[in-house]
């Protein structure tokens, strides 16, 4: 029985109003969590005795890094779904997710290197984790470049789905290859210095920020999907009747 419901929302016509209702909800959650998270990270969390105030960048850096990896998996999930069930919505979801994923990957790179300058004395090192994050960013760019270069929507959906599935198969391979590349040659010149035990408030702040990023992602993706739906189905009856009033 519950399957029936799912399929109902897999059609753009019924997903569109649902998404419209969900957006304010998630926007509100995001705003609250962001406020709390930022307050914790800037005022509650104590100054680190080793790293000074600069370490506060962690509250953006870590959640952004998590999100960037997670979003790629979600894209692959939607793509697989699109291939198996042949739903139109999945292509739109994949394309709506990609820019946000790329944005978080970029944010992770930028905040990481901003942090790297005071910590390691250099903006960039060829460390395994940094390199694999960079490659992830390139995978996002590849996806964006491909989908924006194809203007027939059906072909765009399918090509995007193939690319994100191939990419997600490769991600573990890339991840391990980069780790071995980096550690087998020679000792890494600079390695990530992790705080030995993370302070409780710090962890709290990070988790709340991560949740806020989740909320943001959901809200913005729903918004983008609505735009894509409108653009694609502008000619269809339900858009003329319901959506454009």
């Amino acid at each position, binding site marked *: 029985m519950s399957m029936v419901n799912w399929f109902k929302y897999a059609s753009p016509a019924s997903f569109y109003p649902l998404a419209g209702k969900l957006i304010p909800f998630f926007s509100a959650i995001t705003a609250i969590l962001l406020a709390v998270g930022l307050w914790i990270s800037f005022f509650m969390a104590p100054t680190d005795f080793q790293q000074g105030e600069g370490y506060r960048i962690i509250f953006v850096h870590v959640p952004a890094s998590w999100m960037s990896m997670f979003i790629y998996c979600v894209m692959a999930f939607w793509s697989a779904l699109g291939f198996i069930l042949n739903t139109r919505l999945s292509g739109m979801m994949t394309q709506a997710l990609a820019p946000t994923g790329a944005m978080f990957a970029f944010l992770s790179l930028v905040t990481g290197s901003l942090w790297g300058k005071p910590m390691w004395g250099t903006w960039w090192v060829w460390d395994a984790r940094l390199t694999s994050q960079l490659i992830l960013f390139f995978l996002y760019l*590849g996806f964006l470049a491909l989908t924006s*270069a194809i203007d027939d929507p059906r*072909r765009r959906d*399918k*090509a995007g789905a*193939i690319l994100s599935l191939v*990419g997600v198969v490769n991600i573990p*391979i*890339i991840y391990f290859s*980069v780790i071995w590349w980096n550690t087998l040659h020679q000792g890494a010149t600079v390695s990530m210095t992790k705080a030995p035990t993370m302070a409780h408030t710090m962890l709290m702040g990070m988790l709340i920020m991560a949740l806020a990023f989740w909320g943001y992602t959901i809200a913005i993706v729903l918004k983008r999907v609505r735009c894509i739906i409108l653009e694609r189905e502008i000619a269809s009856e339900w858009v003329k009747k319901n959506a454009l009033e």
Partner: protein
Amino acid sequence: MNLFSTIYCMARRDLTLALRHKTEILTALFFFVIVVNLLPLGVGPDPKLLSKIAPGVVWIGALLATLLGLPRLFAHDYQDGTLEQLSLSPRSFTLIVLGKIMAHWIVAGLPVVLITPLLGIQFNLSGPIIGVLMLTLVLGTPVLSLIGAIGAALTLGVRGGGVLLSLLILPLYIPVLIFGAGAAEAYRAGLDMTGYLWLLAALDLLALFFAPWVSAIALKVALE
């Protein structure tokens, strides 16, 4: 109409086309040679430095040489309508694609493997290291052609295809590059390198199994 006849007949067809102008094969080779030879001009002639970076650079050269031929893998057949006809063939489209990929490897990958000893000598690499380098190339370059075919199929008929293709494919090539160059480096450092070789072989199998099939799907999408 069986498996091998289809692969063989497509591969032979593409090789005939490549051989029609003998330059086709020779130039892929010379591109590789020239790219690798540009390096000393760019980074200076210090022999110790050069022999240190040589295996990695040979691998990057091989990768770019493969890449260079990729846009043409399906593009000609697409433009002149042959691909449409191929998809109308009663033979399996996946196998047809596999035949084309094999021809691409024979034209772009194999010559690169065979010329490597010469470059190795230029960069003062020892015999055994050259051997290892060739072994990794034999194992690795087919993966490059196979994965590349997916990219070529996805970007078919898309404007800016050649460059877009590189953008899609180069990140996916990175494991091959790392395992390939890594094996040679590990051998030089006296470490065990069989792990790398097994990994390359595993990639080979994986790609051989999936890439022609995925490319065929992508091509059908492009033809719609």
